[in-house]
């Protein structure tokens, strides 16, 4: 992905040298032309056309903001309810993501989502240990959120 981005910038600079005008607007024109060229030549790259992962990252950011707002609503309800009848639990979640940066990203996402945060990652990086604030109604729903997060992260790195 970074390779394609760099290639696109270089193509934009080639356009600037060809057009003999060194301004922001000619850079943008060259960049868009380069984008078209890279789209035509996409089958020669081993990874997907790099605009796709960028969109997925945008999607991840939106999910993140939504989950952060929901998380705060959930904490607010627990803190301000008259009786503390929550059931905390610590459970292990098997991981599908492999690379270190993916695990870090996933654990930050989990920490900022409703009622969960990460306590530890196992030594072989196959499991993470999650503390939930209210087990019965969160456990299954959270598992679903996690699969959607994990799937999106896997889409980015593919």
């Amino acid at each position, binding site marked *: 992905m970074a390779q394609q981005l760099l290639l696109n910038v270089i193509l934009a600079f080639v356009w600037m040298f060809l057009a003999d005008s060194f301004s922001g607007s000619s850079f943008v024109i060259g960049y868009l032309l380069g984008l078209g060229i890279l789209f035509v030549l996409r089958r020669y790259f081993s990874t997907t056309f790099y605009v796709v992962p960028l969109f997925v990252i945008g999607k991840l950011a939106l999910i993140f903001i939504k989950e952060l707002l929901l998380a705060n609503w959930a904490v607010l309800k627990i803190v301000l309810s008259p009786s503390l009848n929550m059931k905390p639990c610590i459970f292990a979640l098997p991981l599908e993501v492999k690379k270190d940066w993916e695990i870090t990203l996933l654990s930050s996402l989990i920490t900022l989502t409703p009622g969960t945060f990460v*306590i530890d990652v196992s030594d072989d990086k196959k499991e993470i240990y999650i503390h939930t604030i209210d087990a019965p109604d969160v456990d299954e729903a959270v598992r679903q959120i996690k699969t959607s997060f994990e799937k999106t992260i896997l889409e980015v790195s593919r």
Partner: protein
Amino acid sequence: MTEIIDGLIVLFVMAGALLTLISAIGVLRLPDVYTRSHAISKSTTLGMIFILMGTLFYFWLKHDHFNSRLLLAIVFLFLTSPVSAHLISRAAYYSGVRPWEGTVRDDLAERRENRTKSAE
């Protein structure tokens, strides 16, 4: 138009202050380190972000001064506060702080015992 802008700024700052207050109440009310860590890591993060966004909009829309440092501070808060919550609760867990007795399940207990055994 200025009323809308004023309302937006007031809304952001008030929401941020309220969320910070709620997380302070959470620290007082919740029973153990881990549940308190929930209140701290989520509510204060969003509360601070709201206050910073209110400040950003105030100087941007009222005084025509876009302060990029506030934006950077929001991003830094986003990145660092979940990590610090994770590290504090992890350190608490391995130094032997027991979860609250209402805790239903504890998959980490076995792991902690192995660690303490290997330390001895």
